[in-house]
């Protein structure tokens, strides 16, 4: 039995291990623990974000919740239905949208794609036309619905994905990195659509690795790293984790791994992350508030060409970096 929880989506100690075999004559089985005991609950009407780097276990978690993967252990329920034992009931209540180019029939028009999935989700024939029209309007594809999907931009495909996931008007919607690879304007429109879902009373579980997206959209966030939830709370609460810190942003060229390790080991430094921006590397160094480390850090980067250096207040992204790198 699941512990007593009132969430629309409930996960308790979810574990998922993948087994792969390699070798022809000497078969060797490798086990990878993608999710190592994840528990959370999402309340009715909540927009809940599952945040984590690539390979953290976000998609595996979502696939267990939408019944595509059977958990190795642990339990999960959607609207009270067990995702393993009552998978058909769960599927009736959920919509699933994932990001990227895949998941559509390229040689068919958007209209044909939607008609097909309307049948698959048992939308009554008399309601199909009206429902498809409403959704095309919602996602801004009205007038383009008779074109083949192969000619659609990434943003249009993503909007069509959302329309497909909402055909049967599910009360619970799972969005797995829906804005990945979409241009900034398209991504902003998608975020507005996602917000409108929550405003319409739907419970939304969103996975993303874009911090600003989670900050803008989510009521609550769980940060997942290496298959475990490392923090959970409102965006404000998560930001508070790093409120007592200062962030120094150093743009540099030609920084060696050894230099980064020296910075990481410096007294007072709590975490370091490196972003590649064209030829430049941008080091984000977190340290306790009040410490003046800039000169010391620059000394550790001796040999590298230093560009812009700035100290600033922490953002949700910094909280995320701190959580996944500590």
């Amino acid at each position, binding site marked *: 039995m699941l512990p007593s929880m009132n969430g629309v989506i409930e996960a308790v100690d979810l574990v998922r291990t*993948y*087994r792969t075999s390699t070798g022809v004559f000497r078969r060797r089985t490798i086990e990878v623990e993608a999710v190592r005991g994840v528990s959370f609950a999402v309340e009715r009407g909540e927009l809940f974000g599952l945040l984590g780097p690539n390979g953290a276990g976000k998609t595996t978690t979502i*696939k267990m919740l*939408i*019944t*595509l*993967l*059977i958990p190795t252990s642990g339990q999960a329920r959607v609207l009270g239905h067990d995702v393993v034992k009552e998978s*058909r009931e769960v*599927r*009736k209540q959920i919509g*699933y949208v*994932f990001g*990227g180019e*895949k*998941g*559509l*029939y*390229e*040689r*068919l028009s958007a209209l*044909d794609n939607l*008609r*097909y*999935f309307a*049948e*698959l*989700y*048992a939308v009554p*024939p008399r309601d199909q036309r009206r429902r498809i029209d409403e959704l095309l309007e919602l996602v801004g594809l009205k007038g383009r619905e008779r074109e083949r999907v192969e000619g659609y931009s990434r943003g249009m495909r993503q909007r069509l994905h959302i329309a*497909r996931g909402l055909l*049967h008007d599910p009360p619970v919607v799972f969005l797995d990195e829906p804005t990945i690879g979409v241009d900034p304007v398209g991504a902003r429109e998608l975020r507005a659509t996602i917000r409108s879902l929550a405003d319409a009373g739907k419970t939304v579980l969103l996975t993303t690795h874009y911090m600003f997206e989670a900050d803008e959209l989510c009521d609550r966030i769980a940060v997942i790293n290496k298959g475990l939830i490392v923090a959970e709370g409102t965006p404000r609460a998560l930001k508070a984790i790093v409120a007592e810190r200062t962030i120094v942003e150093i743009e540099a060229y030609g920084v060696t791994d050894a230099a980064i390790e020296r910075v990481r080991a410096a007294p007072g430094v709590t975490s370091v992350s490196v972003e590649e921006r064209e030829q430049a590397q941008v080091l984000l160094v977190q340290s306790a508030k009040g410490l003046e480390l800039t000169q010391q850090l620059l000394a550790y980067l001796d040999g590298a060409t230093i560009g812009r250096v700035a100290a600033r207040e922490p953002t949700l992204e910094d909280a995320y970096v701190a959580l996944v790198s500590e």
Partner: protein
Amino acid sequence: MRAARLLAVGWLLHIKMLSRSSFNGVLGLVYPLFFATVAFFLFREGSPHALLYASLGASVMGIWSATSTAAGAALQRERWQGTLELLVAATAHFSLVLLPVTIAMSTIGLYSMATTLLWGRILFGIDVSIVHPVLFAASVVATIVAIGMCGFLLAVSFVRYRTAWALGNLLEYPIWLICGFLVPLSLFPGWVRPISWMLAPTWGMRAIRESALGGSPLPDLGVCLALGAGYTLAGVLVVETMLTAARSRATVSLT
């Protein structure tokens, strides 16, 4: 009613998709040429009756090829394009999702059948005169449906086993032989015949020939459809087990 509608819409949309593939279109022209040529050179010393016998056999080869090789490829394509997991996650019973896909493939084989007969007529002068046109049409439809049902049973295993598409390719040529498409079954060793009798294409082929050449196709037609129904029942019975295994071993979305 809902199930019939889902089957019809699924069949129609997959036909639409398959017929829009230029690669399949070229194969649809080249393969029948190959089939018609083989039939002609095998039976060119025989009577016009024998040539028609062979030409009909060659034409059904296309239907089987379209299903056996394409069923695996289609499931693999669904995996690559990320639609397989959406089909699995849908509320419809997976049998109702998969069956129209394989029947659409065997229906596309109808194009190959017509082209084979046409090539035979144009290039080798094989006279295509059908004694019972209505029964012939019924036999062709029944054969297409039964081969589609056979493809369904194969496709169910493709969902669980990612590399099972190779099995479809492996089955292409043996079925041509042991279902008597080109060579009469009487030429094979006795132990082959029970295997042939278990295969719906054998009976579909016989019904097509009987109706074209002036025999009585109805018994063959009945056996063909009964076997097709048997394959479907077997597929429906195992599909949930296969899906559960695929969800457990995470093979639904892996390519």
